[in-house]
């Protein structure tokens, strides 16, 4: 095999919009559970 130089493109891993939304919701739920947010007004 020739001594070719190979370029490897490393793409940063990305979550889908769905996954980000789920992560945000879980984080908020965890903060509520931990008592950081005690009362959320509406």
């Amino acid at each position, binding site marked *: 095999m020739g001594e070719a130089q190979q370029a490897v493109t490393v793409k940063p891993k990305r979550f889908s919009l769905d996954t980000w939304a789920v992560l945000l919701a879980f984080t908020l*739920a965890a903060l509520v559970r931990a008592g950081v947010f005690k009362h959320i007004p509406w």
Partner: protein
Amino acid sequence: MASSVAVVQVRPANRALQLLKLAPGVLLLAGVGYAGKLLEANVGKYAKTHHWTFPNIEYVLWAILIGLVISNTFGVPEIFRAGVATYEFWLKAGIVLLGARFLLGDVLKLGGTSLALVAIEIVGAIAFMTFLGRVFRLKPKLTSLLAVGSAVCGVSAIIATQGAIEADEEDSSFAIAAILALGALSLFTFPLIGHSLHLTDQAYGVWSGLAVDNTAEAAAAGALYSDAAGKLAVLTKTTRNALIGFVVLAYAFYWASRGQAQAVGNKARFLWQKFPKFVLGFLLISTLATFAFFSKEQIGALANLSRWAFLLTFAGVGLRTNFKALSKQGLKPFLVGAIGEVAIAGFTLGLVLAAQRIFGW
């Protein structure tokens, strides 16, 4: 073997700058949504003090109306657009948090009934839209996109199918425009029909979830009727969303068998890629709530967080609906979509009325 490997690191985009670009639009969503909330609280009070007869208009409708006025008069300036487009993100986060208001037993019971109705709706909608597409001689792939959009879940389903069946971008924008325009109309017609037929919250909520195609509009159409109807509309629509992968897979097989799309390799992977992950998030939060992981006060807090997320979504529904832009997409796909949607709305209303009788909703 190569002697050296040059690793070209794709520069991670400046995330902070990207987030900053979203800020104006997100603030606009929050401003429009909060204005809707203030109007709900104060317009009725003002009318009462002045002895006017004025219907009680919920924040959902105010937020959508303000958004529609901005979008269709001044237009949404460029600086706000990226942030306004996040309305779907807030919708999905809101749905996951809404899981706290459903005990798993209710989800299984209501979801089970919804699933049966959703299955009938999907088969009926696909068959009818395909028939209409043939009658109106639409391009076959455009017909497939309209059928998936009206049968499953609006814009997400159309985008997922476009990739899987290698449809033209133009076809997909036709189908999306038709679904969005009809979704906007349903916001005004569904509550009127529901009230005139004296539908219960449950029957109306399930009907909105079955017949309104885009998730944001389905949630809004439900919430315009009542809070309980809004919850059920989201649950039913989420059941529909959960089936997106199977329908897209079936279409991918169909077009691949005709040599007009690439064959699907790993089916399980395909299904996982297309499966909306927020459905799993919703089920997990619902499971945690069922097993008393959250106290009563915490469930109240999560429910309010979900309401705030939906507030941003409803503002976004109005802000991104531009009737002029939608009307430019051509009459034929819109006509097919409109006839199909009216038929599907009538068909699903019949299903819901039958279920109301059978299950005593």
